[in-house]
């Protein structure tokens, strides 16, 4: 009797925690945007953030260079080529209900030029900008979907 109770308890505990682990995953949308003052063009696919970009920066042109949808699990970093010579590493450090703690590293020639940790909640966008690209700069736009 005791053995069967123990096995039953172990089964429930195991199945509960395995389900929780499987659910601890988020989808991060990452867009690499080139912002410049060459021209007046705004990429149609950036219409949803054009207003935000316009209120924050004084660039006249925004072009989408790359868009990635990353499915992140805790401590399984994803690396993408942001633009020539630079890599972006995104790692889900912690996920608590509606807040995802992300570590973002911008790597150039094997060196971290930026290392940051942010708390991303649904509806919030984190923009990491500044690295030069062509006539303008590159802005990485990160948002999470839970």
């Amino acid at each position, binding site marked *: *009797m*005791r053995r069967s*109770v123990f096995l*039953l*308890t172990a089964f*429930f*505990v195991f199945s*509960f925690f395995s389900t*929780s682990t499987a659910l601890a995953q988020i989808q991060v949308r990452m867009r690499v945007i080139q912002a410049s003052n060459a021209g007046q063009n705004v990429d149609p696919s950036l219409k949803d953030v054009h*207003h*935000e970009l316009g*209120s*924050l920066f004084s660039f006249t042109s925004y072009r989408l260079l790359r868009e990635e949808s990353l499915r992140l699990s805790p401590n399984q970093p994803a690396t993408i080529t942001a633009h020539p*010579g*630079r890599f972006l590493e995104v790692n889900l450090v912690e996920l*608590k*209900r*509606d*807040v995802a*703690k992300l570590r973002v590293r*911008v790597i*150039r020639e094997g*060196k*971290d*030029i*930026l*290392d*940051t*940790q*942010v*708390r*991303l909640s649904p*509806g*919030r*966008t*984190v*923009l*990491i*900008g*500044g*690295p*030069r*690209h*062509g006539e303008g700069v590159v802005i990485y736009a990160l948002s999470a979907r839970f």
Partner: protein
Amino acid sequence: MLLEKYFDQEVTDTERSLVDGHLPDCPACREVLDSMEELRTLMKAPVEEVVRKEDFPWVWQKIEREIGSQKKRTWWQSLRSWLDMTPLLKRKVWIPAVATFMVLLFITSQVIFKRTPSYPDGSVVEYVESQSDNVMVYQLEDPKVTVIWLFESPEEEATTT
């Protein structure tokens, strides 16, 4: 047959008037009716005697006492009696079952109701570091945007452009 129904007052009005019209001219039917009346009198007397002797208030008091004793049972007694109804429960299987349930409830409640620390909206960026360049953090609440801006030094800009 009709006479029996007449005696038991189960006839219709038409049947009654028919029998009433017939009886004065039929001594045989009158005799049958009289014998029925005699039989009823004979049976009624002993029954009434028994009923008279029976102590009905005492029976009623007994019933009331029985109902009263059932009402006074505590919830624990009721639960026990309910648990004892099933042979499976008589074997006390419910003790480890309840214990297992309580353990599971405790474990799951710890995980489900674990309080998430509420982060103030003003601290989206936990830390930011750059080995080579200056960094500025700018945050807006409407729209909900946080900007981390990296100021690349001129020689680095030259290598990338």
